[in-house]
């Protein structure tokens, strides 16, 4: 049993907003996720009660309060475990995890990997603001090297984790990236995540206006974003630039940028995206692409079909007494006379 869209219930985005006013700072990227998330839910053909939004602790993890579905604001780093238990026990639900870069990748890194690898039909949105927002500005596992934060007064020394690389290495069957500012892409990606059968992982590049303002502006500002990011399209080459005049090629395993005549022939070694290739190496290579050497890919990195974990979970029930009796039970009558139970009483002969 899995999530079966019932019918269009006529629910609108507004129907998925709770009465609690979001308590994020004005301008926080979290608003954008909330907007597109509640925009996606109505498309799924499920009534509100079938949704569960589960989070850990962090600014991002406040999301459940603002969504008018079932919600669980659990403990720091552990949302995936709660979501997994809920989903295995109730495959009929649509379970969404809202998490932060600290929540999912620092304290929660292990649950993240294990949820992804099991591939339950759970959707995970990671609000990556490269900072600990809620605790007021410490470095997170995605904070850039050299960055000064409250906990790295001399600049961060930890090489950052790439969330998508981790997800892909863990076997993600759906992995995508989108910036908080790109509503259209967010809508598209969330829709694909919702439609995917299996675990879907979406990294949102998200601006924390208070503690890490502008950390992604080189990827999100109108003036530059065409030059610094590339939108992944299935089976298509990675052409980007304001004038669509650059292309990503591959030399051995080294992606490179080359000039490209818009509409002109593709170089032989053009990197062609393929979301559904089984081997995850291409997706991994894409997840390694970083500014400024290369454009940062956004969109869907990987989308493959694999056994959905919750499909294994389907107890049917049955005769418990049989279980309790096991294979070695016996019957005693009131007088203490003993006889074996059923099949076991077969005669002892083989020799």
């Amino acid at each position, binding site marked *: 049993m899995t999530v079966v869209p019932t019918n269009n219930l006529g629910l609108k985005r507004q129907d998925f907003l709770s009465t609690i006013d979001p308590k994020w700072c004005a301008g926080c990227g979290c608003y954008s996720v909330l907007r597109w998330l509640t925009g996606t839910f109505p498309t799924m053909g499920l009534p509100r009660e079938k949704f569960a939004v589960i989070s850990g602790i962090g600014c991002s993890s406040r999301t459940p309060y603002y969504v008018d579905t079932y919600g669980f604001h659990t403990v720091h780093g552990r949302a*995936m475990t709660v979501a*997994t238990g809920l989903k295995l026990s109730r495959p009929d639900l649509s379970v969404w995890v809202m998490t932060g870069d600290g929540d999912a990748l620092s304290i929660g890194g292990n649950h993240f*990997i*294990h949820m992804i690898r099991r591939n339950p039909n759970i959707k995970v949105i990671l609000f990556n603001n490269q900072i600990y927002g809620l605790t007021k500005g410490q470095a997170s596992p995605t904070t850039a090297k050299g960055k000064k934060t409250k906990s790295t007064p001399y600049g961060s020394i930890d090489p950052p984790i790439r969330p998508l690389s981790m997800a892909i290495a863990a076997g993600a069957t759906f992995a995508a990236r989108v910036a908080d500012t790109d509503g259209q892409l967010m809508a598209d990606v969330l829709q694909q995540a919702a439609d995917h059968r299996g675990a879907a992982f979406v990294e949102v590049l998200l601006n924390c206006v208070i503690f890490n303002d502008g950390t992604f502006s080189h990827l999100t500002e109108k003036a530059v974003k065409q030059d610094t990011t590339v939108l992944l399209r299935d089976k298509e080459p990675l052409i980007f630039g304001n004038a669509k005049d650059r292309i990503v090629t591959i030399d051995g395993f080294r992606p490179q940028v080359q000039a490209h005549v818009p509409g002109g022939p593709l170089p032989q070694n053009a990197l062609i995206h393929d979301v559904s290739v089984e081997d995850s190496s291409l997706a991994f290579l894409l997840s390694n692409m970083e500014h400024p050497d290369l454009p940062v890919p956004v969109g869907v990195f990987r989308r493959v079909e694999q056994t959905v974990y919750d499909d294994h979970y389907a107890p049917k029930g049955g005769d*418990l007494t049989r279980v309790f009796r096991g294979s070695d039970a016996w019957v005693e*009558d*009131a007088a203490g006379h003993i006889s074996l139970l059923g099949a076991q009483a077969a005669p002892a002969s083989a020799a």
Partner: protein
Amino acid sequence: MIPQQFVHTIEEVDTVVIRFAGDSGDGMQLVGDQFTSTSALMGDDVATLPDYPSEIRAPAGTIGGVSGYQVCFGTSDVFTPGDSLDFLVAMNPAALRANMPFLKRGATIILNEDAFIARNVEKAGYTADPLTTDELANFRVLRVPMVKATQEALGAAGLSAKQVDRCKNFFALGLSYWLFNRDVKQTQRWIIKKFGNKPDVLEANQRAFEAGLQYGKDGKLVERTYATRAKVTPRGAGVYRQISGNTATAYGLLAAARRANLPLFLGSYPITPATDIMQVLQQNREFCNVLQAEDEIAGIGSAIGAAFGGALAATSTSGPGFSLKTEFINLAVMTELPLVIVDVQRAGPSTGLPTKTEQSDLLQALFGRHGESPLAVVSASSPRDCFDATIEAARIALKYMTPVVLLTDGYLGNGSEVWRVPELDELPVLKTHLVTNPEGFKPYTRDPETLARPWAAVGTPGLEHRIGGLEKEDGSGNISHSPANHQRMTDLRAAKIEKITQDIAPTEVYGDPNAPVLVLGWGSTRGVIEQAIGHLNKAGVPVAGAHLRHLNPLPPDLKALMQRYKRVLLPEINSGQLAYHLRGKYLIDIEQFNKVEGQPFRADEIEAKIRSMPEIKG
């Protein structure tokens, strides 16, 4: 009840304590198991104590590698696997040496004499072959060339020497069956079932088993054999089986879910000695969802998720894993979700002695969480009682919407005894607070009788709501930072747990109710305490006993009960944790009796302690 084929003198006995001991690879657990189920099937009561070596395989022949299986069987008063051994079957010098401290004076030792070669004697840490010194002077020693006899029996079977050697446990088993006049049919059948698909091994084991029997019949061992007396009072009509504590716990969960009409979810992670609970449920996946999680934190986290979704949710572990669950248990307290947390206690602290038993997680269960975080704690008192205790834990969890810690221990979990298999409809129906009516629904209103909040499982139309670890507003469940509300909720959480006292039956006192001394116990000490008190009462020593299932809240009548006695004695396999708790609660002094050796108490230790008390000595 005594099979016809045996014609030696037969001595009738009440109870016998025997231990089969050998190298880890010698198959002693199998031998013990067969011996026990046969005895049970013959109408005897049984209680067993498997005693594994430390977690990892030690080099063959050393003390560290000895594996033992003790069983007490008989027709009366089998409360425990026995304090000390009447019989020891020792497959090698190390097995002998390791078990010397447990032998009764005059006990019978059946030795595999073929193993007493210089190398083994040395490996066992003996400076001289104990068969050549007076080391065994106080015992009856029966030397049996088990290896040679097995070889002889298997002569033609065409097996390798190693394979032949592996069969000697069946020889020992056969010999023991003869000695104790056990019924051979069940084991014969079992051998066929187990080895049916490996015909050569099957035949070898069958032959070895028969050879053991024959060795006895031929009069090569002793003249006299033993048989348990016919039962005076039968167990009562019903279906019976032998069951270990861990299996009983797993079945308790299955039963509770069925009787609550809920799906069962277990989130767990392997850890000695609790792993079996998970494994038993995994074998029964038609009846439940089991997640072997990535760690103990994920184990309980997934269970909490399942509880949110309306399942009877549980997590099972032992000490170190219990410690890891601390933070999440607190979330269950705050969100007031029903959850059964099984802690099969083992000797701590830290990794401690993983295969040894202890009762030392009680205070942690009571207080081991940050903040004011009350929850219910119940304990099981015998392997089969694990079934009932688990149902009780689930009942409380569901009725009071609270996490409940169920304390068992390694001794209970691995030990086994005869269990009357109940019919499902004999078991209590468990009520839940599941709600479906949106009218006036708020997630933190309270049932007046239990103070439980309503359980609005995910998926219920119209009851969409949000819960979490932040303090909640009374009633609405919204986040609240109000000081007064925090006080109110703190008090409510405590009051709810206190409410459970209304369900606790009056504490049952056994033994001599007018005695000056009450022996209080909890958990796995029940068998030994009951045995000690029974003995003493028979000997005219006035002493009473009471055993606690509920540790939080405590029975409401406990204080008054304790005050009725001059002195309360409290044996615990820890440094006095319940004693401390009772003192803190009731300001009543308690005579502690503690043992932290990774071993259960023996009844004779308790007996001696009681006898030594001034209130008893007079």
